[in-house]
């Protein structure tokens, strides 16, 4: 039987490339699908027509787009949707996504429901992110609201998305975009073509204009073409990528999160009360996300906290991806896991740094299989923020428990995507509110992994895609 083939979508029109990539099962090597590979020039040429994507979406009122996207959410989670020359059921989607990303199937299902939640709550999400701005002002470009002339100008007719292979949850970030009457140019991760293609089909079936979506699988040079030719692009990458695009208003980079839980001196003695919260923040969704906690910062009890976490997380071991309790995601490229493991081992050579999970694990951190590898949860104790492993993030359940005086904590933690501050000390809370190195701030016992979609994530997408400007009408 021939493999399903994902074509390039050039403003909704299928285009089969002569350059085809075969995507295989991470554990068995079984061939699962073929994906047409774009050459960068296709993007360069197609972007000449990007304005048509926005024009097609602007012809549909925002409220109606929200309704259609909500219907697309249902189709995405429940319907058999076109794939290649056949169709794909939701269960097949889950199996395939798990088979190429290494994420356990139950986590893939959870991600589906997360995407469904975003699409079915767009009205509330957009109201929140636009602070209740009338949608007609975005469509028309201006309008009077509260006796004040408001003008919103789109920075780009389309949003480029250079997507990762290993975090299906990130798709939630681009789902609201068509409702803002902005088209999409998606470059899927090589191992995760499943979500962008299935979602595009759901969008089409729900009545979104085909010409509003471009989908360009390919190598790194295709991602670079998207960044170069689309006026607003969101990309995912390493710390180095973040630095490369820092200050570039056309590119929003989602890098490592370095998300953390910070205990104030007033609460740290009650740390046992928050053990579940810490475990969940580290382990949920395989510990892969930028919102997973990678650091717990306390002024005292650091060793006891690290030991308690190690007792809980140390025994956690890989299970087959089909197991509904599988806690860990596989590294589909085994060498990556080996590299991470070596980095950790090198970091452990430093005085004042200790792997407390080692004694509870009953085996090595690195579990190598024929074609993939796993890294088992690891809790490191650092006696000072100056230790090399004190502020590190890896794509598995890994966290450092760092001893640091409260007075130095906020400056020592560095960039932090999600900061959960457990303290009733108003001075400390106020300082956290003012800390510009924390993006999402949770005051109180909120797991770092608990996202409220009504809040902006690493910058408000509205201000990325639109600019508010002056407009006067005679």
């Amino acid at each position, binding site marked *: 039987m021939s493999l399903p083939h994902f074509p390039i979508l050039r403003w909704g029109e299928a285009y089969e*490339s*002569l*350059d085809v990539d075969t995507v295989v099962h991470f554990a068995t090597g079984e061939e699962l699908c073929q994906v047409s*590979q774009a*050459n960068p*020039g*296709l993007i*360069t*040429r197609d972007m000449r027509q990007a304005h048509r994507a926005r024009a097609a979406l602007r012809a549909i009122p925002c409220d109606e787009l929200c309704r259609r996207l909500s219907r697309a959410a249902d189709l995405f989670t429940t319907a058999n949707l076109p794939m290649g020359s056949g169709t794909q059921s939701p269960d097949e989607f889950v199996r395939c996504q798990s088979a190429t990303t290494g994420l356990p199937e139950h986590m893939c299902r959870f991600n589906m429901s997360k995407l469904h939640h975003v699409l079915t709550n767009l009205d509330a999400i957009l109201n929140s992110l636009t602070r209740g701005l009338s949608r007609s002002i975005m469509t028309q470009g201006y309008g009077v609201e509260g006796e004040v002339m408001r003008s919103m100008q789109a920075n780009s007719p389309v949003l480029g998305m250079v997507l990762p292979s290993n975090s299906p949850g990130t798709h939630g970030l681009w789902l609201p975009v068509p409702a803002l009457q902005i088209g999409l140019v998606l470059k899927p991760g090589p191992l995760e073509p499943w979500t962008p293609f299935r979602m595009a089909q759901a969008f089409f079936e729900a009545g979104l204009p085909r010409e509003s979506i471009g989908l360009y699988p390919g190598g790194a040079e295709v991602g670079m073409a998207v960044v170069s030719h689309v006026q607003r692009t969101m990309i995912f990458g390493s710390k180095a990528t973040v630095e490369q695009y820092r200050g570039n208003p056309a590119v929003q980079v989602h890098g490592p999160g370095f998300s953390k839980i910070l205990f104030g001196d007033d609460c740290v003695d009650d740390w046992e009360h928050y053990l579940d919260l810490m475990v969940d923040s580290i382990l949920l969704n395989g510990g892969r996300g930028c919102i997973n906690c990678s650091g717990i910062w306390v002024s005292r009890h650091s060793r006891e906290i690290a030991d308690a976490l190690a007792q809980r997380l140390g025994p956690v071991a890989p299970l087959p991806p089909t197991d509904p309790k599988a806690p860990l995601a596989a590294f589909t490229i085994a060498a990556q896991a080996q590299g991470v493991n070596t980095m950790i081992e090198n970091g452990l050579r430093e005085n004042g740094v200790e792997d407390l999970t080692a004694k509870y694990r009953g085996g090595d951190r690195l579990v190598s299989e024929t074609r993939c590898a796993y890294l088992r949860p690891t809790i490191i104790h650092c006696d000072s923020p100056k230790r090399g492993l004190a502020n590190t993030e890896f794509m598995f359940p890994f966290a450092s428990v760092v001893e640091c005086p409260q007075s130095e904590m906020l400056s020592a933690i560095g960039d932090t995507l999600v900061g959960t501050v457990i303290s009733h000390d108003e001075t400390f809370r106020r300082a956290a509110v003012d800390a510009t190195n924390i993006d999402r701030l949770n005051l109180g016992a909120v797991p770092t992994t608990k996202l409220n979609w009504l809040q902006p994530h690493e910058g408000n997408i509205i201000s990325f895609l639109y600019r508010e400007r002056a407009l006067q009408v005679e």
Partner: protein
Amino acid sequence: MSSNALSSTESAASAARTALDAHLREIVRWHFSPETGTPIWLDWAKKAGWSPIEKIKTIDDLVRFPNFADESLRNEPLERWIPAAYKGRPFTIFETGGTTGMPKQRIGWDDYKTDYEQFSETLSDVEFPRNGYWLMMGPTGPRRLRLAIEHLANHRGCSCFFVDLDPRWVKKLISSKQFDQAKAYMEHVVDQAVTILTHRRVDALFTTPKLLEALAEKTSIPESGIKGVFCGGTTMEPQYTRFLVEEVLERRTKFVPTYGNTLMGLACHKPLTPEDRYSITYYAPQPRAMLRVVDPDQPERVVEYDQWGRVELTTLTREFFMPRFLERDEAIRRRPCEQYAWDGVGEVRPYGATKAVIVEGVY
């Protein structure tokens, strides 16, 4: 293919092989005879302790030579490459493409003219009109290509405009990750070409694939009056070739890809048919040069047809003899075809392209 056609191809291949062997003997005799020979090869034979004139009778005997060490093109004095018959006649110094540091140099007299006059015969007068102006946008400077394209234009009855691109500078920019500068330089080059096209009539263009693509972003190539594009310099994989033909040239301007360099001359492509699915095969200008696709681990062994291997070049002219040089390219060994009765090299790309990212430049 019918059995008649097959036997006709086989017989043409056999005749080509006979002609190649005869040409090889003549060239070996030329370079290794004291009266006509080249100092570097005469000295080499003395040290080797065997006589190429006696031992090299057919192409199969070429394996008696080791793979050509191209360092000699950097290190040896230029005079040591002058065949006795050319002594006293000023020569042209050509340098190879985008390398940095001391470049490889080949001296020459008329080879490039011969090569391009022969190549000219493969061009259609409709798509590359006689008496039509050419534009070359690409590496000029010390490269053979610059004189060669001008000679091609002259040979076909007209003249050529030039816009230079320095690939060595581009390579430095890319290696040091100055992508903005590389992009700005490319735009600078392309803008100059657009200016020429805006103010002068141009019928034919030589350029590199990347520059062709960039030019088409600024102007419609068919609309600018260009009827034929002769293109080479970097990899052209099937999808990219299709893109150039269908979109960059809008299926209206003829596309003639080539594979060549200072050491070989230029290899022609087999005209593309639908069955080729845009997979380009090049054929060396045999007998003046010969390309083989060899096993990288046993370079004396030619790989089977349709298999990948490393490209090996042998140049056989009176001006220059270079046996078994391993190019920095890999390719698929392809069968002889109707137009060329010897082996071809298909889908040429940098050697090791599947294992590492190769900086080819903006070429």
